[in-house]
């Protein structure tokens, strides 16, 4: 496939030039021309008012995609604790499996306190359990070896992991070995009706755009999934399933973990489990503003988060940062005070049930995603809220 401009249709208006993220379109003799810089990202296709830009199939023959059946999720554990994202993956995997009329399996390397049965209760029909001391601590090579072998043996159609430090580190090795596609950090997954292919939606360009990615010709289709965006399935106490013990293969590793230091701060845990989050941005103006926000959070039994601008100013530590380079949160209520609503911030909090925005500037983009917006000065609005809530609580 390549991108081509039909010269007769091109009016030379140049809108496509501005749309190209790779500077790959130039004006040549008053007509647009695609240069060798083209990365085939398709961004220009829909901008042309004359419909002069199109994809051209060049008859490249692709290899057969091979078969595959069943949806698999990698159940991540660290120090015997099941990662929260694993439950979300089981939820997402269950929905995909039901759509495909297929089974859902989990792969557990090492073990967890409550054992493989827990994964069955959360939705798995089958668990491949490699309960071996070599799997207790994460090392890329043995994890990649065991998972690749299992995939080669059982040939699943879809394999998912959490987009965590662990998932994003060893899944690429598996995909590289199997010469199949891997889509990073997906925020939505679905099945394409007409083809049965996995539609993988993910943010790119720093969250400024979303892209749908397909892996049409290779199997399995692999993806890592961003934590806290998918919903876990209902826990079923009495659900039955099968546990298949797996012998570890090639467990030698060139890397060795000599020490594990847990640094989970109270705040980190609080933010991800919080029902209510009060967040401040550059508009909070300084530590004084954040003091006010902590006060509001306290009256609501909530936690405090911040935009990167506030963190960069040094008003509040990094562990409070929400967004693309911070944490992803999904509370019932997110109260954004003095935050403009840059995409990099929004991607970290948009799955909140209710978003309340307080901002002086009526044009601030945060209002376009807010459930409730108040145009006003947070130094006026927040004290009023605190007073009102205290009244109601009889404090």
């Amino acid at each position, binding site marked *: 496939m390549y991108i081509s401009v039909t010269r007769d249709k091109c009016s030379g208006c140049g809108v496509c030039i*501005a*749309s*190209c*993220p*790779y500077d790959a379109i130039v004006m040549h003799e008053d007509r647009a021309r695609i240069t*060798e*810089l083209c*990365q085939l*990202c*398709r*961004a220009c296709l*829909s901008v042309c008012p004359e419909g002069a830009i199109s994809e051209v199939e060049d008859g*490249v023959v*692709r290899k057969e995609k091979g078969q595959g059946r069943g949806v698999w999720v990698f159940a991540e554990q*660290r120090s015997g604790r099941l*990662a929260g994202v694993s439950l979300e993956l089981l939820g997402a995997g269950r929905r995909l499996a039901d759509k495909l009329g297929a089974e859902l399996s989990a792969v557990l390397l090492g073990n967890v306190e409550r054992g493989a049965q827990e994964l069955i209760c959360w939705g798995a029909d089958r668990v491949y359990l490699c309960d071996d001391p070599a799997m207790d601590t994460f090392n890329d090579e043995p994890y*990649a070896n065991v998972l690749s072998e299992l995939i080669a043996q059982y040939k699943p159609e879809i394999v998912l992991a959490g987009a965590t*430090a*662990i998932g*994003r580190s060893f899944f*690429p090795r598996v*995909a*590289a070995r199997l010469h199949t*596609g891997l889509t*990073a*950090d997906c925020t939505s997954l679905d099945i394409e009706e007409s083809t049965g292919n996995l539609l993988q939606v993910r943010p*790119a*360009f*720093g969250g*400024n*755009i*979303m*892209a*749908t*990615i397909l*892996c049409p*010709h*290779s199997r399995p289709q692999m993806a890592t999934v961003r934590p806290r965006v998918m919903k876990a399935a209902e826990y079923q106490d009495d659900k039955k399933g099968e546990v298949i013990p797996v012998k570890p293969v090639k467990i030698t590793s*060139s890397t*060795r*973990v*000599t020490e594990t*230091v847990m*640094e989970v701060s109270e705040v980190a845990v609080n933010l991800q489990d919080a*029902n209510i989050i009060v967040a401040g941005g550059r508009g909070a103006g300084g530590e004084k503003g954040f003091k006010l926000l902590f006060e509001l959070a306290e009256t*609501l039994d909530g936690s405090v988060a911040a935009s990167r601008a506030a963190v960069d100013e040094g008003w509040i530590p990094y562990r409070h940062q929400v967004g693309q380079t911070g944490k992803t949160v999904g509370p*019932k*209520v997110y109260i954004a005070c003095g935050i403009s609503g840059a995409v990099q911030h929004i991607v970290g909090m948009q799955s909140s049930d*209710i*978003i*309340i925005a307080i901002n002086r500037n*009526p044009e601030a983009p945060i209002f376009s*995603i*807010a459930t*409730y917006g*108040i145009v006003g000065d947070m130094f006026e609005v927040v004290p*009023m*809220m605190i007073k009102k809530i205290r009244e*109601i*609580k009889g404090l």
Partner: protein
Amino acid sequence: MKIVVCVKQVPDTAEVRINPETNTLVRDGVPSIINPYDLHAVEAALQIREAAGGEVTTLTMGPPQAENALRETVSMGVDRAVLLTDRLFAGSDTWATAYTLYKGIEHLGADIILCGKQAIDGDTAQVGPEIAEFFGMPHIAYVRKIVEVGNDRIVVQRLMDDGFDVVESSLPVLLTVVREINVPRLPSLKGKMAAKKAGILKLSAADLKAEEENLGLKGSPTQVKNIFAPEAKANRKVLSGSMEDNVAQLVNELVEMKCI
């Protein structure tokens, strides 16, 4: 010690936007920069060279213009810069990119390969670990500190979701680095002069003896189906009464949601 650093030239994504009406990228005048994480990888390489001796090469796969990014790394003090460029590389996803870089590094030889954590245009963080897999060598992702480098052994701290691990590995090894690892140096005047004169080695698919079906679009299992703007939430209300009324209404909603 031979060190190869993979650097990518990317559009400065902080300035890329999407026009929600037409679903297309607005990119007027967005400059190309070196992927910021890769600058940290270059700095890490230079520090290893200062401590243990050796030679640092920066490597990029990209169009001829990517040469500018490579010159910038020469001005920081790297010994050599290599550009993999060929029409056949166009349309590469992470698999094909990693394969191509692997062939390039195989050609050059390396004891330590450094990559950024991720490239800010794609944000995938996959190319590094995939290169390591093609070599069959170990990798350590999200390195935030290099503790010790020996002739056949390295010790690093790897950032995890709940803290960090101290990890040791044999060499050769591939590391991907996060921002916390260091502060990249600025080019020196001498470096800038050197960058102007530096010869950049250019290699094509044929030079690499790469298999054509593993390159570019052909070698890429994934395809971009479409792009669109991040969606806005429905049911929005801007409260437009007096400030007292607005706050009262808001607090009422919180009461109704059983948040108070």
